[in-house]
């Protein structure tokens, strides 16, 4: 059940906006609309945001992402198209209905915090509740709880200007959380903060999200941030969405040159997971096999090591060619006498964490939640994963999805 549905949304600025949209609908290209004096900020955008996910819209400045966000809660009216929240169409609402919808269902966090300088931190956090018409005592109590949730106990009576940037944005977050809406719109919420604080806020948002399970639409121009936070990411360019997908999908299968250019600088080690860099373990030997069999498998497949699995398919170790020959010489009956222990990692482990696990010449065994072997990661693959993006699609083709 999608929480927010956006269908063929257009926003064109200028007097003759409707005319320009008609032109775009009938095939004009780009933001250079055929009608002079108009600018197309958002062009033919459609997507669904699922309930409880963090949906990131990423794009450079001027790509129309903030305009798009403001159409979701009606601060900017759409020129054409539909926005739907659950079963209600926002784009068909009257001004009063939209205000009611915002009170109950959507709150927002702003790039430059947008805290009211003439209200205390507590009064700022209580703003949404005040608009909802809550009594003074209750709204202050709930604002206090929201501030405590973001770690601002004891700062209630200060003014926003007395707080650091990171703390101010926490107040902004508390104001949105206190309103207790199911949807949270975040407009470049962490972009004005310095990198360390930004990282801290991202962690806090992720841990809050685990507790609260809001539906979040997060706007950013920072790809690393997008990949850290987003369950799914929409990449925008010149008002259009060029790709929607998970961080890994965007990194490994960029839809076009623009996206691949964009992801070039991303910290791949943090985004890619073991699953996306592993090789399928097509050739394993059971632990009951003889060292001879293991050697034969290695010879046939030109491998220097082979993973040994037990009867449930769980990896129990790996055998190197030299050890296997040794075992043959000593007439061992089964291969497990020659095996060395392998490190096991889960499929969703970030590549950056694999480096510490992968020491020595043995591959890493990637297992699923039942402990069954689903792949192996060789050190060479690990290094290649950090390399060029062009290689990535070749590797993932071997994977079944």
């Amino acid at each position, binding site marked *: 059940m999608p929480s927010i549905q956006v269908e063929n949304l257009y926003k064109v600025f200028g007097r003759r906006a409707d005319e320009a949209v008609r032109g775009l609908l009938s095939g004009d290209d780009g933001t250079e609309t055929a009608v002079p004096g108009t600018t197309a900020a958002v062009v033919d955008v459609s997507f669904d945001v699922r309930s409880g996910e963090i949906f990131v819209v990423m794009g450079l400045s001027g790509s129309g992402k903030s305009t798009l966000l403001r159409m979701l809660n009606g*601060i900017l009216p759409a020129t054409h198209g539909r926005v739907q929240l659950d079963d209600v169409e926002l784009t068909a609402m009257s001004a009063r209905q939209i205000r009611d919808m*915002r009170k109950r269902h959507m709150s927002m966090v702003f*790039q430059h915090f*947008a805290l009211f*300088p*003439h*209200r205390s931190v507590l009064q700022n956090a209580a703003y949404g509740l005040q*608009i909802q018409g809550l009594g003074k005592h209750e709204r202050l109590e709930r604002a206090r709880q929201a501030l405590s949730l973001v770690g601002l106990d004891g700062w209630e009576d*200060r*003014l926003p200007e007395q707080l650091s940037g990171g703390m101010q944005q926490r107040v902004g977050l508390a104001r949105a959380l206190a309103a207790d809406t199911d949807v949270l719109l975040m407009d470049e919420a962490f972009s004005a903060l310095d990198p360390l604080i930004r990282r801290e806020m991202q962690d806090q948002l992720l841990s809050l999200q685990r507790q609260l399970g809001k539906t979040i639409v997060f706007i950013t121009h920072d790809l690393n941030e997008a990949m850290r936070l987003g369950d799914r990411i929409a990449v925008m360019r010149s008002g259009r969405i060029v790709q929607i997908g998970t961080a890994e999908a965007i990194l490994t299968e960029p839809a076009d040159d623009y996206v691949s250019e964009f992801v070039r600088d991303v910290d791949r080690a943090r985004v890619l997971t073991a699953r996306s860099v592993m090789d399928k373990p097509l050739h394993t030997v059971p632990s009951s096999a003889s060292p001879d069999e293991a050697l034969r498998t290695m010879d046939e497949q030109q491998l220097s090591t082979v993973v040994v699995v037990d009867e449930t398919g769980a990896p129990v170790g790996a055998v190197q060619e030299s050890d296997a020959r040794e075992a043959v010489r000593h007439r061992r009956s089964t291969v497990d006498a020659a095996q060395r222990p392998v490190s096991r990692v889960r499929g969703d482990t970030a590549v950056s964490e694999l480096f510490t696990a992968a020491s020595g010449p043995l591959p890493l065994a990637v297992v699923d939640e039942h402990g069954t072997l689903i792949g192996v990661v060789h050190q060479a693959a690990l290094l290649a994963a950090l390399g060029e993006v062009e290689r990535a699609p070749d590797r993932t083709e071997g994977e079944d999805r």
Partner: protein
Amino acid sequence: MRATAVADWEVPRIPLGERFADLVQWLQDNFGDFFTAISEGLDSAVTSLAELLTWPPTWVMILVFALLALWLRGWKFGIAALLGFALLDGLDSYDSAMQTLSLVLLAGIVAVAIAVPLGILGARSDTASRMIKPVMDFLQTVPQFIYLIPAVIFFGIGVGPGIVATVMFALAPGVRLTELGIRQVDREMVEAGEAFGSSPTRILTGIQIPLAMPSIMAGVNQIIMLSLSMVVIAGMVGTPGLGADVFEATTRLQLGAGFEYGVSVVILAIYLDRITASMSAKSAVSRARRLAGAA
């Protein structure tokens, strides 16, 4: 032949002045009673206010002015106000100064009551802003004396024309600074109001006006200062107070008296300027700062 005809051509005389005079006459013919009523109302309001200000013993009032100054700006200005008003009394212009003060206060209140809503209207609607702007340009740049002519025709001589001309003249900066102040409120701040479901009225009263207050108060300060300058000039049409004294001294070329009245106007002007300027420091943000114990 033809060339000389073109060279001799000139724009025919445009009877703008005559038409304006006709309009004023027409208004006078049709709404004369209305204007007279306004004039009488203003007259009695100013007279009562001046009587109220001169009713207590002068030294009591001087102390009141000094204490107000002390409260709003501190002891230095308190002492300066004490000395200033004592000097006014010493120059025998205290009663005239109180009349002038009453005129300024009344004209100022009327001007603020017109200017602030107009400024808000201009800030909220670009169309209104485009219509208001040229009118304000006109009101602000027409030479001050010109206001007196229609004012006298409509309201006779005395307090009425003085107040009306003053309001017209002092309006513009109040409108402009109110509009500017509201338009300068951070767009994100207004969006924050919208995003949480505030109505436009609530955003105006809860966010825009409080945050625009320093600018609005600067407008009020300008209104008061322009009012004072116009009220003095209105002495020419028989508006009582320091203006009438100055005008009399001017026409009789009384150097000493003219100087004394001039100094009196300056004292009143400085006092009013500092008092209204310090009122803008009492804006919503600075009040919040004081409550929070910040600088």
